[in-house]
């Protein structure tokens, strides 16, 4: 642990130096750095002739006046109109608010994206099994309901602020509404895309699931984002309408609802309450998805593995490597940010 911290400190110093050296433009190098290190925002400085020669129209012909240049417009000063002082842009700060990422943390967070991709893959696998008739809808239905029950128990066990919004009775009502509506609409859903060609259906589902992955609120998955959930459900309805029976469609939709709507809430609670379980859950899910896909097609499984590895291991590395090219400038011209807590004005 000690070594790690020393390593971190050294890295910080070198990082600072790298940024400073690589970032500053050539004409601001020498004096500016000195000025900054000594905090020279308000100091009086005499006019170095070298700087004037670099930019002024008449280099060297001006004698250094007694009064220094001030940054005011309401007084007449003995400087020419295009005079640029040496204190120009001395309040420029570079990359002030930049975060220093740690690889492990980023990789951990990227696990969420990988987990979502594997969810989608799992749903597709289940659909494929049902379409081929290898999975009976009753089994899927039973399994989904069991998982839902287990998940609910886990959710309650993890505790946390219940809030007055949702009681158990309201949850039961929601579940009843879901099941009733899905069961009622399943005959309609079965014949919905009969007249649409298979290619169109597949293309639509692919686009919708992609939209779901792109618009998923990874930062705050608990209230599910409208567009992501709707896109996922639309895609699963399109796929469910290709299944052979009404009960198949019902089972598929229940499973999709479970995976896309209820699982992120549970995951969010897991992450908040028991953070150490989160990586294990993600890894377990990815493994399950890969193995499921492998039973269908090895090529697909290979692609999935590659995608997951790229997401989890490669992309964080890329993010960290690209941080060195960051070049944000800050200064007194930025918009004001309020750091106070203004909620005291509400009460």
């Amino acid at each position, binding site marked *: 642990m000690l070594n790690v911290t020393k390593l971190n400190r050294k890295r910080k110093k070198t990082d600072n130096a790298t940024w400073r050296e690589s970032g500053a433009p050539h004409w601001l190098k020498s004096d500016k750095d000195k000025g900054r290190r000594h905090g020279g925002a308000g100091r009086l400085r005499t006019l170095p002739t070298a700087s004037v020669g670099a930019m002024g129209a008449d280099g060297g012909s001006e004698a250094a006046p007694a009064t220094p240049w001030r940054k005011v417009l309401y007084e007449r000063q003995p400087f020419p109109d295009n005079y640029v002082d040496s204190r120009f842009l001395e309040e420029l700060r570079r990359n002030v608010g930049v975060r220093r990422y740690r690889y492990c943390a980023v990789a951990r967070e990227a696990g969420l994206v990988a987990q979502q991709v594997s969810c989608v893959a799992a749903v597709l696998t289940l659909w494929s099994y049902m379409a081929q008739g290898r999975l009976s809808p009753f089994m899927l239905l039973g399994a989904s309901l069991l998982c839902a029950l287990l998940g609910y128990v886990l959710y309650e066990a993890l505790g946390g602020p219940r809030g007055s919004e949702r009681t158990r009775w309201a949850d039961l009502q*929601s579940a009843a*509404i*879901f099941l009733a*509506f*899905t069961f009622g*609409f399943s005959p*309609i*859903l079965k*014949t*919905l*895309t*009969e*007249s*649409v060609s298979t290619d169109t259906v597949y293309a639509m589902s692919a686009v919708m699931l992609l939209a779901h992955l792109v618009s998923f609120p990874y930062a705050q998955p608990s*209230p*599910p*984002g*409208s*567009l992501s*959930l*709707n896109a996922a*459900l*639309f895609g699963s*309805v*399109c796929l469910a309408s290709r299944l052979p029976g009404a009960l198949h469609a019902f089972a598929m939709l229940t499973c999709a*609802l479970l995976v896309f*709507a209820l699982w992120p809430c549970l995951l969010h609670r897991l992450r908040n309450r028991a953070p150490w379980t989160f990586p294990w859950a993600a890894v377990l899910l990815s493994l399950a998805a890969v193995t499921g896909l492998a039973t269908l097609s090895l090529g697909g499984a290979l692609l999935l593995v590659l995608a997951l590895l790229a997401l989890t291991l490669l992309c964080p590395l890329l993010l960290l490597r690209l941080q060195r090219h960051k070049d944000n400038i800050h200064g007194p011209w930025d918009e004001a940010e309020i750091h106070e807590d203004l909620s005291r004005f509400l009460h």
Partner: protein
Amino acid sequence: MVLKIFFPQCCNRADSGLLVGRWVPGFDSVVVLAVIHYPFIPGQVKKYLSEMQSAIQLELTVLGSWSMPKDGQEGMDSFLKDLSTIFPQGRWLQLSRELGKRGFACDDEKEKVIFIHYDQRKVMLSHLHPAHGQEPAAEGVSELRLVFQTVAQSQPLFFLDKYDDGPIKLTHWQSEGREASILVELIKQASVPMCLVLTWLLSLWTQLRILNMWPVRFVSSKLSTCVQLSHRTEHLQTISSPRRAQQHADFMRKANIFVSFLVDIALGLLLISWLYRENRIGRLANTLVPVADHVAKELQELLQWLMGAPAGLKMNRALDQVLGRFFLYHIHLWISYIHLLSPFIEMILWYVGLSACLGLTFALSVVSDIVALLTFHIYCFYVYGARIYCLKIYGLSSLWRLFRGKKWNVLRQRVDSCSYDLDQLFIGTLLFTILLFLLPTTALYYLVFTLLRLGVVLLQGFIHLMIDIINSFPLFAGGLRLFRPYRLAEGVKFKVLCEEPGMSLHLMMEINPLKLSTAVQQYRIPTYSCYPKDSWAALCKKLFVGDLIYPWTPLHKGSKED
């Protein structure tokens, strides 16, 4: 300043005497209305003039003297000059004419004089319309208008003709004797009691309480026959009011309504005489039921085509079957109904055809109503299809907003973002998917039935256009313009009669009649039909969204369609 003397043409050859007329107030002109001949007693003249003045409500005065000396009547001049002392007035005109010469002379050295000759009868009968583009109420009091008014109001002055044995002998346009015909007198005598009878009958009719009850009123507002009936009742009430029309516009309106009514009835009787010969009613009734059957069969075939794969489009089979069977059942009901009625159709048609004696417009309204009744099922289908489509479009647009996570803010009339509950999102997405995939089927049914409905409405609209033309065309005004053009005057034109140096200028005033198109436009009888308020763009938008388009119903405040 120039003095304008309006001189009637009939007095050009009058014997010497006194000029009677009116000084036009505010202008430097005078209108001569008649000439009183010798011998006369000044006191009687004055009494007569004051009687006339109270009857006419105009300031009639003795204007001056007129001398056209015949043989043996020389030496009148001094006599005429003395007359000016007997009749006190502001100015005294002394006009004289010599036999054989064309021009007059006016012994007034103060100013120049222009003689404007006018045809008294025509000016009396004509009505001067305001100039083109002017509002009738904003017409200024112009000189010409005053002249016309003077002559028109002086009708009682022209009742004395040369056969009257009174103390006064006048010369004016009617002094050769008034024309009268027995027929006109009889009609005039009979019209008053007839008007009273008609008014009484109409009051009985309008007082029928049963006609104001809601179901009858609703049905009668939909049937164009009843609307036409009420329209004609109003017309009859206008005609049969026993008061004479005071204003020219009222008179023209009454006359137009009367003439168009008569022409309508004549055409209707003509139609009846043609229709009831050679058993045409029977033949018509016999073709009506097969026509209705044919229409129903065509519709059934159309629905079968829609239930298959119409034009290669792929419809949702289940919904297709449901809608198709629903509409087919309706058609089946309709055909049974028609077949039930078929024995009675001939009798119904016979009695209904008799109503054409009330006018051709009635016959056309009956035709329009029959068309509406025969195609009632098309109307029903259109309403069903439009309602389903409208609901679907509304639901889709609302659910599309839910799909994106937005909501319609009714208060601010804009789209806001909204965080929905899980169950709302789920059910919303499910419904959105279902509605989206069922849209092509519904849209096709809606399109087909809307086109059918538009066809029927076009036909009905054409019939209504005919009815409207017959109702509103002012035949009397048109006839008047063609055969008596001087009665509708737009202005006057002047022709130079005699321009000799040393003599006054003589002009002939001729009446410029109103243009036929202006006459027709001005005297149009107002009808009950409204013109479409929607532009084409608004109509297309209504069709796209699925709002109902209402047909040619007169009392409806909604949108109309051509």
